[in-house]
């Protein structure tokens, strides 16, 4: 579905991604793990073209997208949930969702998609008129994911959904993410919270210094321990 081939990008003179390659198949939850500052967020921003690809190609559904305008990707079916949620703080919950629906590709069944996200996040339905900035952290993350979903995406790029959330909230958030994948949306998940991410991903890459340093095909317990110990610096008892 998504294929990233030898991509180089960065800010100014600094190269953050140094020839990274990876792919995501339809229906998967693919995790990208790695420490702070290895280029995980830059990778997602490069996919959605907020940062220009300098070398390499990004192919989505057989089409090269590295030169398309960033505002067109949502209608092609790629929704990016940015790190730190970035909901529109002075707009109401429903307006946050409308923004996304205004530019979605499937304009017809907007009502279905709204009721789908309200089933996933009943809390949002109770707070439709409330300003985004007054929601709690967990609710803001719900809204950020809901905003992506109402566009009817085929692929969601999720950047650190667990950031700043209480462990219990993280758990239910990840259960919901699993549900979204089950309902047919492919997910590329970037996480620092490796423990939570490892619970739900089907495949994963470990990133370091702007490249992938490890790729797992199938996650076995044995492999899991190795990943934790070697790449994520966790001690495995």
């Amino acid at each position: 579905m998504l294929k990233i081939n030898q991509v180089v990008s960065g800010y100014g003179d600094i190269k953050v991604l140094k020839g990274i390659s990876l792919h995501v198949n339809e229906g998967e939850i693919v995790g990208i793990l790695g420490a702070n500052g290895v280029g995980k967020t830059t990778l997602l921003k490069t996919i959605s073209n907020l940062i220009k690809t300098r070398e390499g190609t990004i192919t989505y559904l057989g089409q090269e997208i590295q030169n398309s305008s960033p505002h067109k990707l949502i209608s092609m079916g790629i929704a990016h949930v940015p790190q730190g949620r970035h909901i529109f703080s002075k707009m109401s919950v429903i307006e946050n969702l409308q923004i996304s629906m205004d530019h979605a590709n499937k304009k017809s069944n907007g009502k279905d998609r709204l009721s789908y996200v309200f089933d996933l996040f009943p809390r949002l339905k109770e707070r439709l008129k409330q300003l985004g900035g007054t929601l709690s952290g967990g609710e803001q993350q719900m809204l950020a994911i809901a905003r992506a979903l109402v566009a009817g995406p085929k692929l969601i790029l999720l950047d650190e959904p667990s950031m700043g959330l209480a462990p219990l909230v993280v758990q239910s958030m990840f259960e919901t993410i699993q549900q979204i994948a089950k309902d047919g949306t492919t997910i590329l998940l970037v996480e620092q919270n490796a423990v939570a991410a490892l619970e739900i991903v089907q495949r994963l890459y470990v990133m370091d210094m702007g490249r992938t340093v490890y790729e797992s095909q199938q996650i076995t317990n044995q492999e899991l321990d190795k990943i934790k110990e070697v790449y994520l610096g966790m001690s495995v008892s």
Partner: protein
Amino acid sequence: MTELIQIIVNGMANGALYALIALGLTLIYGVMNLSNFAQGEFAMIGAFGTYYFMQMHMNYLMAMILSLIVAGLIGFVIHILAFHPLRKSEPLNMMLSSLGVSVLLVNLSQYLFSPNPKVVSNSFSEDSIQAFGVFLSQQRILIVIVSLILCGFTYWLLERSKFGRSVRAASLDPDTATLYGIPTNRIAFITFVFGVALTGIAGGLTAPIYNVYPTMGISLTLKAFVVVVLGGMGNIPGAIMGGFIVGLIESFSAGYVSTAFQDVIVFSALFLVLIIKPEGILSKVQGEKV
């Protein structure tokens, strides 16, 4: 009593003009992060446009509509030349660029039209209505009505339309707005042209009262900045309310203190607000931006 009503009416008329100019200024600031020091010059363009179209024997309203289009077109060209290329650099660069645009427009119009003030007279500026013993010039009533309609329209556009939603989203968080399908560059363009066109109308409205001359925009820019700071930068209702407040402060100072002191009092009010409530009198405590 009649004096009081007269003062209030005059204040409202000036305030309506300030509100209109400040509205354009605050919209542009919100979306482009640009403190546009050339804003008043678009009022000057609107006023000169109105004058010259009327010289061509058009009626006043037609001349104003055409000159608002001219102001918009000039704004479009200026956006391409002076602001669009700087959109990714520091906001300070765009602000300096706007100062350059201001100087350019003032000098160009001095060269083209001469510095001598031109008089615009229309049927509204000569007639006045007498009510409750007060003389109300029709032009001032026209200013208040047109400006309230335009402010109301702009507010409706921003709060209720899909376009307005895009504008607000682009001003709150341009990157995320882009991710959700909003062409932020195009929105910035449209907002700039719309903002300067509003100011162009203000120029056309003020022409019959204050005459038309190349430097007329400079003091309007300053007043508009006072209004925008009073109301809170980027705050739309704040700009509208702030406009009327500044207009009223001015006319009360002129009426009860002295006209020589009116600017002193307006700017003192600005300093007071900056000290006591620097985020603007109309802004509520903001939700934390996470």
